[in-house]
Structures are given as C-alpha cells and as structure tokens.
C-alpha cells in the first residue's frame, strides 16, 4: 500500500518543482500564489473539513453515549450498512435536490412563505460552505458510528458506565469520563481519515460546495483536467500545499486532543455529575440521528422521484405525472456506464480480495501478529488525501501510456478498495475456530486443502460481505477514475458528477439511483448467497 502512495507523492513533487521542464525551480508555486482565490480556497477547505469532522464526531459520540439500548439505536444499527454503502456522490446529489431553492424543503415551506417561484436564496453552493459541511457530516456519521461500535467491546464500556452511574454520574458525562478516553484511542485513525477526507473531498465539494472560489481540492482537479498541460505544474504545487494543509490540520487536531484530555481531567476533579444534562441531551441526540438519516433517505427518495417525474412544477410536492421516458432515453448511456462501473469494481475487488486472503492466510500459517505500525500502513491510502498523490499517479500513468485505460483505473481502485476489504474481513478471518484446522490436519489434510475446503467455505459470508464493501468503495470512486482514466473511462459516478452542473434533474436522478443500486445489490448478494448455499446447514446460520 505504501508503494502507490509514495510513487504518487513523488510524481506530484517532480512537476511541482519544475523537474519536468529542467528545473528545479519554484515557477509552479509562483503561479499558484498568483491565483487570486488562493486564500479563500485554503480557508474554505480548512473550515469545512474541521467543522464537518468535529460535528460528525460530536453527533456520533452523543448517539453512542445517550441512545444505546433504545429502540431508535437498534433501528439506526439496521440502517447503518445501507447508509454506508451509498456513494458520496449520490448522497451529495440527493442532498442537493433536497436543499436547492426548488427542492423539497423549499416546496414544503412555500405555502407558508407564499412562494410561487423558487426563492432567490443561496441554499446550495453557499460561499461559507454550509451545505458542503452538512453533506460531509451526514456521510461521515455512519462511518464513525460503525468504527465506534467495532471498538466498544474492547473498552469494557458497560461495566465502566455502571461504575460511573453508581457514583451518581449522568449518562452523558459518565460516558465522557469513563469510556471516551479508552474509546477514542481505538477510533483515532478513523477520525484522522475523516478529517483528511473532509478537507479534500472532491465530488461532494463539486456538488454542494461554493464555486468562486471552490475548495482547494476542486480547484486542483479542474487544473488537472485542463487540456493545456501548463496547468499541471500549478496543480501539483497546489496538491503539495493541500498535503501540507492536511498535515497541519492533523497536527492541530492532535494538539486539541491533548488539550481536551487535560480539560477532561480537570473536569473530573471538580466532581460535577452532569446528571441533569441527560434530559435535554437525549432528545437532541435522537433528533440529530434522525436528521442525519432523514437527510440521506429523503435525498435518495428525491433522486428516485425525479428520475420518473413527468411535469413537476414548483411548489408541488409530487410530480403531476410519472413517466419512464427519462430511463428509456438514457438507457444506452446508463447501460454502458453501468457495465464499465461493474467491470472495474469486479476486477478491483477480485485483486483486493485475493491479496487480503493471501495476507491473512500467511498470517495464520506462520503465526504472525499484525502490529499497530502495519495498521497505519493499511490506513495510509485513506489518510493521505487522494488529491495529493493521484496527480502524481496520473503523471506516471501518462509516462507509461497506461492513462485512460480501464485496467489502469482498476489498478488505482485497488489502492482504495484493499484497505476496506482487509479491515472488513480480518476480524472474522482471525476469529475462525482454529480447532477446525487442527481437526482437518489430524485427518490428514494439508494446509491448502484446509484453506479451500474448510476455512474459505465456512467464511463465505464475511468474504462476500468484504467483497460487497469493496464493490461499494470502487463504485463510489470519483477522483481516481477521472484522473487515471483521463476523462475517457466513464462510470456512473463520473457521469453523475459531470451531469450535476448541468441541472437536468431527471437524468441526474437516474444515474445517481443506479450508482446507489449497484452497491445495494452487492450487499443483497452477500446476504443472500450464503443463506442459499447453507440453507440446509443450521450450524452456518447467522447467530
């Protein structure tokens, strides 16, 4: 995993310092400094990224601390996987449909406000990046929630909460004092990944973010895709600036962690119980969770309705007529993009799954234990912003002539699919009952036979789930597909984002719905196939 990231970074450094033109010089940085939007763009990236991460973390912590054990929490858990599998672009497009001046929210308010035409309000692409922040938050809350739920069993949370409660602490403050320190240690890497992602998100910022200037990542993408190769140097310089900015933000976040830890220790000494905080905070946590889920769900519903809408005037809440015209007219393009999307995903997932299984099996056979450092390596492609090393990888792809080929794009997808497939599969793979392997060996089976006949079939469900996670990641990839594909490899995601600026909502809806449906189908298959294969094996049922 380190290879492509380092190669990409090197490939970004070279043009930034003019090494392609006989440098080294600082020409590219001068060109960057000469761009009038630079200051605002940098501030925007930093502001939306930090705000989105802090909000998403706060909301997730409130949900975990205050809602656990309630029926709302159980419902949320059931919605978690579907929410996670929706690609960023589809979430952003759905939210855009919801928030725009002619969206559902405005239509709801219209009768009260007396609007007969869409109001002249900048609810989308607002210069402060509020819509973008909201989009990032609703997309990251499910991710952080999943990470926290995975980490909680290692924190002895129920007993700690009981101790805090028996000392008279409220749920919220008891959680903060007794569980949070141990929990945060476990989720630090995912939080860093969220921060790095939020600061550098491209497709969400293109759809929801401000335009003049756009966030730095969006501007870099525009420069990268500029047909005049002259902008490549400036893009590379900006990518380095972005990398430095993310590093700075991570450092700042770390300092805030330390400060927060000290503040918590002081707060603990005061002995304040915070028992009265729970009453107002619990409904608030419930509302925020509902809001996050509803924003995604309503947005996606909006996409679906628009894709079959005939005439739909403002401020009607539903279209007057329904039609399949949009779908039938877009069918050829949709089919082509779907085939490419699926092909790339299957290829990338096959490679990632093969590598993951080989790694885990080697770990099991040779009794290796993964270290924290190895885990960092795995997270590297998730933490180092795509926008910082993809321009370099694109340069390498150009040099080798691989740019624009689906194979090169699939290879780039592997870099991002592999960590997720590994993280998804490793716990189940390691938790497999080792006595099965001993029983097999005592019956004369070699290691390969044990792997293919016992371990792999018994792990069919988690293997397919990991594959579905990988499919969802690959299907959602925008920047690698765009940059390594040179704009010539068209997937549902690149097409949906490209269409988003055009404003034909019906077509956008159709692409976004398919973009969302493919991962959902993969997850359905991951659930359905093992159930079908093992329908006569009660010992293989989900427990």
């Amino acid at each position, binding site marked *: 995993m380190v290879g492509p990231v380092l190669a990409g970074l090197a490939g970004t450094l070279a043009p930034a310092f003019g090494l392609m033109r006989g440098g080294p010089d600082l020409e590219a940085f001068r060109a960057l400094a000469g761009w009038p939007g630079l200051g605002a763009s940098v501030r925007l990236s930093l502001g939306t990224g930090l705000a989105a991460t802090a909000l998403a973390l706060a909301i997730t912590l409130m949900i975990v601390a205050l809602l656990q054990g309630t029926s709302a929490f159980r419902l949320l858990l059931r919605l978690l996987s579907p929410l996670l599998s929706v690609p960023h672009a589809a979430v952003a497009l759905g939210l855009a449909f919801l928030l725009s001046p002619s969206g559902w929210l405005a239509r709801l308010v219209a009768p009260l406000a007396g609007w007969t035409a869409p109001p002249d309000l900048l609810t989308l692409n607002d210069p402060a990046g509020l819509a973008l922040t909201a989009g990032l938050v609703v997309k990251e809350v499910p991710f952080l929630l999943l990470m926290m739920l995975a980490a909680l069993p290692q924190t002895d949370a129920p007993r700690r909460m009981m101790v805090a409660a028996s000392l008279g602490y409220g749920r919220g403050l008891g959680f903060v004092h007794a569980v949070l320190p141990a929990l945060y240690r476990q989720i630090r890497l995912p939080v860093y990944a969220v921060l790095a992602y939020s600061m550098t998100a491209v497709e969400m910022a293109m759809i929801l973010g401000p335009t003049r200037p756009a966030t730095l990542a969006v501007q870099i993408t525009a420069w990268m895709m500029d047909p005049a190769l002259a902008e490549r140097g400036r893009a590379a310089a900006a990518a380095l600036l972005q990398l430095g900015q993310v590093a700075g933000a991570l450092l700042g976040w770390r300092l805030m962690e330390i400060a927060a830890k000290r503040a918590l220790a002081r707060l603990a000494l005061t002995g304040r119980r915070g028992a009265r905080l729970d009453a107002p905070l619990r409904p608030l946590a419930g509302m925020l969770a509902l809001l996050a889920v509803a924003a995604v769900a309503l947005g996606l519903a909006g996409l679906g309705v628009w894709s079959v809408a005939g005439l739909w005037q403002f401020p009607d809440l539903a279209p007057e007529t329904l039609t399949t015209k949009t779908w039938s007219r877009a069918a050829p393009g949709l089919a082509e993009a779907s085939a490419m999307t699926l092909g790339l995903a299957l290829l990338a997932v096959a490679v990632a799954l093969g590598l993951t299984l080989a790694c885990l099996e080697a770990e099991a056979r040779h*009794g290796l234990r993964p270290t924290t450092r190895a885990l960092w390596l795995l997270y590297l492609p998730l933490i180092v912003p795509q926008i910082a090393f993809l321009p370099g990888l694109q340069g390498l792809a150009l040099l080798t002539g691989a740019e624009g080929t689906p194979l090169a794009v699939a290879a780039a997808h592997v870099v991002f699919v592999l960590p997720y497939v590994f993280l998804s599969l490793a716990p189940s793979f390691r938790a497999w*009952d080792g*006595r*099965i392997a*001993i*029983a*097999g*060996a*005592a*019956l*004369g*089976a*070699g290691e390969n036979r044990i792997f293919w*006949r*016992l371990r792999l*079939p*018994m792990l*069919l469900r988690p293997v397919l789930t990991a594959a579905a996670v990988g499919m969802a990641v690959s299907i959602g990839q925008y920047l690698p597909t765009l940059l390594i594909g040179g704009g010539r490899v068209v997937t549902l995601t690149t097409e949906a984002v490209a269409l988003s600026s055009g404003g034909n909502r019906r077509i956008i809806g159709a692409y976004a719905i398919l973009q969302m449906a493919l991962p959902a189908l993969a997850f359905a298959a991951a659930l359905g196939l093992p159930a079908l294969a*093992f329908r*006569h*094996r*009660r*010992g*293989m049922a989900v427990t």
Partner: protein
Amino acid sequence: MKGLHLDRLRISRGAETLVSLDLLVAPGEVLTVMGPSGSGKSTALAAIIGTLAPPFRLEGRIWLDGVEVTPLPTRARRIGLLFQDDVLFPHLSVGGNLGFALPPGLRGAARRARIAAALEQAGLPGFADRDPATLSGGQRARVALFRTLLAEPCALLLDEPFSRLDADLREQIRSFVLDRARDRGLPVILVTHDAEDARAAGGSVISPMGLPL
C-alpha cells in the same frame, strides 16, 4: 516396534517443566493422562499431534510404529484426534464430513459405499445427507469418531471427548469409542480430569509429569 512411543518427551516453558513422559503405549492399550486443568495435559497432547505453540520447548522424540514423527507436520503423523466437543464441519453434510477424512484413493460409488458402511457401523444408517447441526449429542460424537477412524490413523488421542455428554450417554459413548479403538489395535492416549473416565479406560493412569496415579 509397534505402538506409540514417547521417548524421553519433555516440554518446558521458560524454566518450568510442564510435561515429562517416557513410555510406550502398545497397540490396543489405553493410557490415561490425568490432571486438573492447566496441568500440562493439553500441552502434551499438542506436542503429540504437532501443534505446539512457539513459547513451548520440546525435547525428546515421538515414535509411531517405529517411525519418528517428531519432525512431521500434523497431517503426516497419522494420529487421530477426538476433541472435547465433536468439531464437525458445520458447512458439510454428515457424509461430507466423513468423505473429508477418507483418503483420496477411493472414487465414486466405492467411496460412497465406504461412507455408507461407516455410518452403518456407527448406528446411523442413511444419515449421509443430514445436516450435522440436526443430530443429537450422541449421534454427533459417533460421527466424529468414525470421521477420525476413516482417515486410517495408527494411534488415537482423546481430548476429554466425553466431558460434554450427559452421564448415561457418556458411559455408552466411552465404551463405544474404546471398543472400536481396541478392535483396530490402536494405541490410545486419553487425556482427562475425570477419575471415572480414567477408571473406565482400564489402562494405567499417570500425571503429565509421568507419575503413576
């Protein structure tokens, strides 16, 4: 020399010696290694089947029918093992579990006939297509025994194989297993913490350190 020979077998971790055995189990004979949990019984067992974890140090040799098996991997040792619970493979049918153990030489109808015959002997005729999860505890224990025997082992290790069964069933299965082992002239080592098991086995009873009990 026929039988299972533990030739000055010594297992230690750090400065502590956990197992010290020097003995021969003749064909058809049962040796019981008894002790409370944590006394090194399982360690001795892991050493004999070849799954000893790295922190343990093994000295001495293990011979089976005159061949030294100490350097061999588990699958090549030809030592059958019955666990505390049956460890049937949950994704395979009863017949699939037995077929997994049967050496690859037999094919097609002959293979199926062999599996059917084993089920007959186990008192489970026609059970080949059954899901192991639908069997009773006693039935599962018998499938596990015949799975082990179909792999044609030259010795048998029993890791408290009866401790999860009810008292009645336990006696019945115990004699069933031991009779089959004696019929085939297998040297048997039984590891248990239960004095009743040890008495019923009929052979000598020692501690993991080799002291007679």
